[in-house]
C-alpha cells in the first residue's frame, strides 16, 4: 500500500444553514451575548429564541476511500451532493468536521479559472501572481512563461490589462496557467463548463496529458463523456455519502439510471396541456436500456397524457450531446406525419435506425406543439443514454480511437477517403454481431 497518495477516512463536514445571515455584525454578536447573559442572570436559564434555531446540514458524512498514484478518479453526483466540498477539504481550503485525510504528494487545486486575477494588472503580471497563488515558484513561472502564453494564444495581448480582455481570453489565460502547474495530485472541479468548444477540447487534451504522465487526478464533472474518457474509476456522491465507487462504466450507468428515474413528471407546469409521464428507451433487440452501441437502433417511447383533446399536434424527439448541442431530430413540423388527435393517456414511439453515434453521453428531448405551433409542453430533457463499445469492434481501427472517440464529433456520417496514393477507402459504423462477425450496418 505504499503507493496510496490519498487516503480518506470517515470524512464529514457540517455546515450551518438557515435564516441566519451568512455574516453577522459585531454589534449583533455583542448584543446577543449581552442579552443571553442578562436573561441567564434573571431567570437562571439561557434564552434562545425558537425562531433563531440554526439548521445544520452534513455536506459530507462518513466518506472513506483510497486513491493510488496514477489513478484518475471521476467524482460525479447531483448538484449539492458534496463534490466541491470534498475537493475543498482535500485542498485544505476548509477544515473537515470529523474524520481525516492523508495526502502524499504535492497538490494542485483547479477549482476555478483565473484564481487571483486582477483586472488592472496585465496578462504578464497576472500570470505571475496567479501562478504564485496556485503554488508555482517564481523560477518555475519564469521557465514556463512562454509556454503559458503560447497555450493561451495571447502573445499580442500579454501586456494589456486583463480588464480589456474578452471573457474567452480570460478563460484561456486562466486555464493556461493552471494547465502548467504540474502537481503530483491534481484536483479539478468542473472547470470545463466554460469556454468555447475548441478551447474545451484543448483543455481536455491537456488534462489527458497530465494523466498520461502518471499523475493522480481527482476530477469532478457533470460531463459524463469526459468522465468516461479520462477516468478508470468513478465515485458517485449522493447527499454527502458515497453511493457507488468502482469501475467508471458501471458507476456512471447506475448514476444516470437514478437520474432518469427523477424525470417522471406528475404535475403540469403553467400552460402545459400535455404531460410527459415517462420515457422508455429501447435498443435494436427491444430491451429497455440506457446503454447503446454505435450501430444500435434507438427507440424512444413517450408515455404522455393530454389534458384535453388536441388536434393534430406536432411531436419532436431530439438527440443532443451531453453538453447540449442538438445532433439530430425527428420532427413532425418537417415530415408532416402528425396524429389526427391525442386525448388522455397515450404513447408515441420514435425509432432512430442505426444511430451511428460515438461512445459518449447523450440527452433525449421531447417537444409537443399544437397545430398553431404554440408549445404544449416545454421542450425538456427527458432522458440520458450512453453509447458504449470499443471502436475497433465497429471498424474504427486506429490505436487511439477509444481515447479520441469521447471527445470527437459524435455523429458519424458514412464517408470515403480518397488518399494521395490513389486508394479509396469507405468508412462507416460496422454492424457488430456479438458473436464476433461484422457487416455493414443499415442493410
Amino acid at each position: 500500500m505504499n503507493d496510496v497518495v490519498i487516503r480518506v477516512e470517515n470524512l464529514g463536514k457540517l455546515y450551518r444553514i438557515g435564516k441566519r445571515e451568512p455574516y453577522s455584525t459585531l454589534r449583533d454578536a455583542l448584543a446577543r451575548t449581552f442579552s443571553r447573559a442578562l436573561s441567564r442572570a434573571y431567570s437562571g436559564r439561557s434564552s434562545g429564541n425558537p425562531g433563531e434555531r440554526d439548521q445544520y446540514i452534513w455536506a459530507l458524512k462518513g466518506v472513506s476511500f483510497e486513491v493510488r498514484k496514477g489513478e484518475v478518479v471521476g467524482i460525479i453526483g447531483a448538484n449539492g451532493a458534496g463534490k466541491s466540498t470534498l475537493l475543498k477539504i482535500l485542498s485544505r481550503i476548509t477544515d473537515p468536521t470529523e474524520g481525516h485525510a492523508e495526502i502524499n504528494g504535492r497538490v494542485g487545486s483547479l477549482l476555478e479559472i483565473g484564481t487571483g486575477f486582477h483586472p488592472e494588472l496585465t496578462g504578464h503580471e497576472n500570470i505571475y501572481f496567479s501562478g504564485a497563488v496556485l503554488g508555482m515558484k517564481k523560477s518555475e513561472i519564469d521557465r514556463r512563461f512562454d509556454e503559458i502564453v503560447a497555450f493561451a494564444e495571447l502573445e499580442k495581448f500579454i501586456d494589456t490589462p486583463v480588464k480589456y480582455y474578452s471573457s474567452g481570453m480570460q478563460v484561456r489565460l486562466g486555464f493556461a496557467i493552471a494547465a502548467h502547474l504540474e502537481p503530483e495530485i491534481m484536483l479539478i472541479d468542473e472547470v470545463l463548463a466554460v469556454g468555447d468548444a475548441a478551447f474545451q477540447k484543448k483543455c481536455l487534451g491537456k488534462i489527458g496529458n497530465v494523466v498520461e504522465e502518471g499523475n493522480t487526478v481527482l476530477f469532478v464533472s457533470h460531463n459524463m463523456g469526459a468522465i468516461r474518457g479520462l477516468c478508470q474509476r468513478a465515485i458517485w456522491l449522493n447527499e454527502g455519502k458515497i453511493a457507488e465507487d468502482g469501475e467508471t462504466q458501471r458507476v456512471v450507468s447506475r448514476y444516470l439510471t437514478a437520474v432518469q428515474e427523477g424525470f417522471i413528471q406528475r404535475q403540469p407546469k403553467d400552460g402545459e396541456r400535455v404531460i410527459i409521464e415517462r420515457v422508455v428507451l429501447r435498443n435494436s433487440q427491444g430491451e429497455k436500456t440506457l446503454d447503446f452501441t454505435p450501430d444500435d437502433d434507438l427507440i424512444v417511447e413517450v408515455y404522455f397524457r393530454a389534458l384535453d383533446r388536441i388536434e393534430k399536434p406536432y411531436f419532436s424527439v431530439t438527440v443532443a450531446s451531453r453538453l447540449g448541442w442538438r445532433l439530430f431530430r425527428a420532427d413532425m413540423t418537417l415530415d408532416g406525419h402528425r396524429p389526427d388527435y391525442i386525448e388522455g393517456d397515450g404513447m408515441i414511439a420514435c425509432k432512430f435506425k442505426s444511430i451511428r453515434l460515438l461512445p459518449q453521453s447523450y440527452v433525449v428531448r421531447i417537444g409537443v406543439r399544437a397545430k398553431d405551433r404554440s408549445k404544449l409542453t416545454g421542450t425538456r430533457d427527458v432522458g440520458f443514454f450512453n453509447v458504449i463499445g470499443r471502436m475497433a469492434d465497429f471498424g474504427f481501427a486506429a490505436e487511439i480511437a477509444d481515447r479520441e472517440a469521447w471527445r470527437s464529433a459524435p455523429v458519424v456520417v458514412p464517408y470515403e477517403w480518397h488518399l494521395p496514393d490513389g486508394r479509396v477507402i469507405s468508412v462507416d459504423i460496422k454492424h457488430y454481431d456479438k458473436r464476433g462477425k461484422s457487416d455493414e450496418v443499415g442493410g
Partner: protein
Amino acid sequence: MIIRPSRGWGFPDLREIWEYRELLYFFAWRSIKVRYKQTVIGALWALIQPFFTMVVFTVIFGILARMPSEGVPYPIFTYTALVPWTYFANSITQASRSIVDNRGIITKVYLPRLIIPAASVLSELLDFTVAFLLLMGMMMFYSIMPTSAILLVPLLILLSMATALGVALWMSALNAIYRDVQYAVPFLVQIWLFATPVAYSSRLLPEAWRPMYGINPMVGVIEGFRWALLGSGGGLEPIFTVSIPITLLLLVTGLLYFRHMEKTFADLV
C-alpha cells in the same frame, strides 16, 4: 500530510510561512502595482497624506494654538510623527479589509492566510520610505543634525511593523467574521490619532500619567522616532517600558486569534 479537524489554539506555523514567503512578496507587489496603475503622480501620493496633514496641524496646533514642540520647529516636530503614524494607519485600514477583499482567492486555493494581512503591512513600507525621504529632506532644511540615535531607526521601523501587524491581524480576522469592523476602522483611526502624540508632545501629560499613556503602543513608536531623529530628551522611559510590551502582547494575541479563526474564513467570508 494529514488533514483533520483542527482543535484548540496554537500559533501559525512559521516554517510554512517561510515556505510561502515568495507569495507574501507577490501579494505586496500586487498591492503596490494595482495602487499605482493608471495614476499620474504615482508614488508621490505617498507624500500627500502626511505632508498636507502636517500643514493643517501646523496651522491649527502650531500657529493658532501655539503648542510647544520640544524645541524644534513645529512642522518637523509633527511630521516626524506623521511618517510612522501614516504607515500604521494605512496598514491597518488596508489589512482590515484584506481577507474579505481576497475572498476569491482564499475560497479556491490553499495558502497560509496570515500572508494576506502581512502583505498589507509589508506593502505600506513603500509609502513609508517615500515619506521618510521627505523627512530626511526636511531635517536638512531645518539644519537638524542626526545624533547617533539615528541608528535606532531600523529597530523602530521593526517596532512599527510589529505594532501594525498585531493590530492588522486582529482587525482582519474580526472583519472576516463580523463585517461591520471595516466601517469602524476609519473612525477608530481618527480617535487613535488624537490619543497618540502626533500633533502634540507627550510631555504635556503629567509624569504620573505617562505609563498609562504608554498602553497605546503607537506612543512608544512615535516617541521613539522623535528621540532617534530629533534628539528630544529623556523623561519618557516609563512610556517605553509599557508601550513595547503592549506591542508584543498585541502581536502574540493577534497571531493566536488569527490562527484560531483562520479555519472558518473560507466558510464565512
